[in-house]
């Protein structure tokens, strides 16, 4: 357990170092190489570079999909095929413009990707890879058997592209086009990850419940990523068709789909530049092995698959992050990022007057099988107070917490927030109404900085989406979000840790980061789930002081705890639960002397 935690923390620190990579210097070197390459390399290697560029586009989609969002697809080659065949049909059969072909390919891809995505994003993780394998096989056989697509011979005579009156028909000219597209896609992806939408996307893989509780529609976001990856693959197919001037089904068989995923893993699936590294290594390796291995086995055949398979096994066993961290280490920057500069303040919700009705729990039920975890529980909470919900272990506190935050649906009764029923709403809709929570088991993105973690809390206070982020049209809002996050971090007293990886902080401070994240949502009610669990005495005292200060600033807090000592000196009122029912309610002083409470906590007197 401890070893696991330690390795987790170490991984977090490592990834943080990767994130701190001086990307500008690397980017400059990379672009300089790209500009010089066509002048230095032979025709053969320029062609190889073109294949690398085409593969980079597809792999980049997979990096976002697999490494960042935790979805997996083995069917990207089919989207490449859709893009290639669409332009093939438009330009050869209908003599249309390649640009019309691009449009047709994108439209067809979007249609299929949205369909597949809508079906699978809500299902467990293994359905998407399985269904994309199936879809890849279906498409391959459809390409190979459709008369209109030339069956297994494919489509010949696809015209070259023509841009601004200039025909792109040599390898070197295609090189320019392919790498411009790849570079644009890489930069767009990098911009996307460094934004409001990007933070949300990075939370999809391990922190979906947390993301939902801060208003992020995880299913929709997964769909967007799947769509973007599919469109990149389709773009690659369009470029491929006009570069090679013919298409045939062989280029889109299942093995290509597997190899694209391998490229993402080799490069390191959590970094956009991993796409270039993975695509380069596997394309070059394949070319080299195709030369070498048949000589070794003295007959022809695609033996490189054995080497690819072994390479993948070794990587997955020993370096699951791929090769990107190795490259990143060379360019690591040790300086912490400066705090974000002051920016325009975000709009705040209208505050409530103290004493207004805030939360009302009315005869709520929740059963798990035959067990009534929460039974006919009612209480009300007013603005400006700290209400403690206490009870021994197993009393149903956490279940109630999950009912109020929308993580679990209630079986009966009503929950009202500001007079409006919220018991049928999913947690992201409850978050929109001004309710923010912390988690009993710290639910932070360990590898991301404290600032980025807290900025996730402010998600609903921004509006800019994925496309704006890719085009960097979101910078004003992004500055405001980051500034707001920094202010909330300062408010809870962690200003010195802005750029630390959240996973590197001690538990007590991580819990405080959770509170800062909830505060960044500008909530009317703060729900804290056992914030003192596992804290040392001093940490508990500091936490109590922080909560008291927040109350004095006008914040309403619902505190679920089982630690009596922590709660007694802090809260204004208490609700005591046992076996799913309310056994007492009142001022801390009254509760302390309540015989039912004493019995619940200490057991009956025999």
């Amino acid at each position, binding site marked *: 357990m401890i070893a696991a935690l330690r390795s987790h923390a170490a991984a977090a620190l490592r990834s943080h170092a990767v994130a701190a990579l001086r990307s500008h210097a690397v980017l400059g070197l990379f672009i300089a190489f790209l500009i010089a390459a066509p002048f230095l390399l032979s025709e053969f290697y320029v062609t190889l570079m073109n294949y690398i560029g085409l593969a980079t586009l597809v792999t980049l989609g997979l990096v976002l999909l697999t490494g960042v969002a935790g979805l997996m697809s083995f069917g990207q080659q089919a989207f490449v095929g859709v893009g290639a065949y669409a332009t093939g049909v438009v330009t050869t059969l209908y003599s249309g413009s390649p640009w019309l072909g691009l449009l047709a390919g994108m439209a067809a891809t979007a249609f299929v990707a949205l369909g597949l995505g809508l079906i699978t994003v809500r299902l467990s993780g293994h359905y998407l890879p399985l269904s994309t394998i199936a879809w890849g096989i279906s498409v391959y056989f459809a390409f190979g058997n459709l008369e209109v697509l030339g069956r297994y011979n494919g489509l010949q005579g696809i015209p070259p592209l023509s841009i601004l009156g200039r025909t792109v028909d040599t390898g070197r000219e295609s090189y320019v086009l392919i790498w411009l597209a790849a570079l644009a896609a890489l930069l767009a992806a990098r911009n996307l990850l460094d934004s409001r939408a990007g933070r949300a996307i990075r939370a999809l893989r391990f922190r979906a419940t947390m993301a939902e509780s801060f208003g992020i529609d995880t299913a929709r976001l997964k769909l967007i990523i799947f769509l973007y990856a599919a469109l990149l693959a389709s773009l690659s197919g369009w470029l491929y068709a006009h570069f090679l001037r013919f298409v045939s089904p062989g280029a889109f068989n299942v093995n290509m789909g597997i190899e694209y995923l391998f490229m993402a893993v080799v490069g390191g699936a959590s970094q956009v530049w991993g796409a270039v590294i993975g695509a380069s290594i596997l394309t070059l390796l394949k070319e080299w092995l195709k030369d070498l291995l048949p000589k070794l086995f003295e007959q022809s055949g695609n033996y490189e698959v054995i080497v*690819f398979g072994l390479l993948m096994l070794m990587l997955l066993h020993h370096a699951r992050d791929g090769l990107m961290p190795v490259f990143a280490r060379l360019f690591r920057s040790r300086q912490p990022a400066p705090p974000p500069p002051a920016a325009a303040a975000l709009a705040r919700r209208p505050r409530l007057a103290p004493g207004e009705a805030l939360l009302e729990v009315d005869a709520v039920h929740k059963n798990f099988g035959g067990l009534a975890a929460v039974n006919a529980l009612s209480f009300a909470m007013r603005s400006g107070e700290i209400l403690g919900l206490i009870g021994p272990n197993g009393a149903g506190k956490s279940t109630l917490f999950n009912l109020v935050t929308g993580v679990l649906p209630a079986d009966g009764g009503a929950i009202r927030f500001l007079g409006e029923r919220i018991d049928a709403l999913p947690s992201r809709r409850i978050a929109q109404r001004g309710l923010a929570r912390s988690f009993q088991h710290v639910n932070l993105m360990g590898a991301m900085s404290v600032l980025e973690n807290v900025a996730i809390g402010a998600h609903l206070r921004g509006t800019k989406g994925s496309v704006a982020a890719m085009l960097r049209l979101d910078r004003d809002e992004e500055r405001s979000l980051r500034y707001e996050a920094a202010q909330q971090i300062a408010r809870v007293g962690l200003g010195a840790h802005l750029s630390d990886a959240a996973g590197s902080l001690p538990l007590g401070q991580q819990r405080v980061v959770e509170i800062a994240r909830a505060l960044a949502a500008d909530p009317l009610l703060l729900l804290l789930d056992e914030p003192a669990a596992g804290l040392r005495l001093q940490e508990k005292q500091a936490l109590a002081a922080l909560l008291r200060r927040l109350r004095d600033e006008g914040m309403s807090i619902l505190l679920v705890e089982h630690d009596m000592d922590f709660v007694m000196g802090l809260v204004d009122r208490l609700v005591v639960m046992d076996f799913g029912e309310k056994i007492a309610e009142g001022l801390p002083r009254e509760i302390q002397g309540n015989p039912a409470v004493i019995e619940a906590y200490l057991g009956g007197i025999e």
Partner: protein
Amino acid sequence: MNTDIFLWLAQDGVINGAIYALLALALLLVFSVTRVIFVPQGEFITFAALSLALLESGQTPGTLYILVFGGIAAAGLDAFAALRERAWRRLPRIAALYLVLPFAVAALVAWAAPQKFAQWVQVLLALAMVVPLGPIIYRIAYQPLAGASILVLFIVSMAVHYILTGLSLVFFGGEGLRSRPFSEAKFKLGVVEVSAQSIWVVAASAVLILLLWLLFERSIYGKALRATSMNRVGARLVGIPSVLTGHLSFLLAAFIGAVSGILIAPITTLYYDTGFLIGLKGFVGAILGGMGSYPLAALGSVAVGLIESFSSFWASAFKEAIVFTLIIPMLVWLSLRSHRVEEDEEP
């Protein structure tokens, strides 16, 4: 379509469906016990079928090299782990399982292959070469990653699939092979002519499914497997080692895959990579059954066989495309039923 063709297609579909049902059960077993989506299951089919075909022509199948070198690799990994923990007493067992057994099987096959023994002997030889590959593959590829996420294990499966198809091409070549039927007899069943081979397939599948059911219900190992698939952590806490259940489920998967291969070797021409598609059709069957229930998976697989058979009549070129599109309506249904936010995967 007249009744004759209908019945003939139905018969064909049931035969294939029986094979897919076997595979679906194995895939479901491996998935529920180890969380591995075992794509390389299909390679056992290829290995067993092609090994049998080669044995029949008196050649020594290259499968024994895969077995011996796989055994050496697994023994090396286990021995390294044992030496590091100074657990000397584990070494003889490791040597017996991963070195002595594979070498003995290899020697036996090398001696027996040119003798052209009776068919049942060759079937046993083929099984003896392929079945031990299950635990060996588990040891080499999956055991070091037992705690990894489903998605990582999925990529591992793809890597293993790559290695095994590559080896398959090296050892069996690109030519398609077919083995002799177990029996040439044909029966008249009403208007349809039924070959003895197809009765073999259906009967053997039924017996195998029954045996599996008995194993799960009656034996302590079966109960360990069931316990692990219901609650992995709980099973470990009561002392069921996950390494044991992993080995066991892969052993069963290899056995089922190899038997399937031997059953279909006489009715289909198999190439070095045919098993992949057959194995995936087992997945389609399992998904049609909701990826959770053994009887439904078997039923779904028979449906796959029937639909495949009938679409080969109406749209033969699109047979594969149709079969793999089948999962879409099922996924839609599963998706509409699920309303929860996907549980968080642990980093």
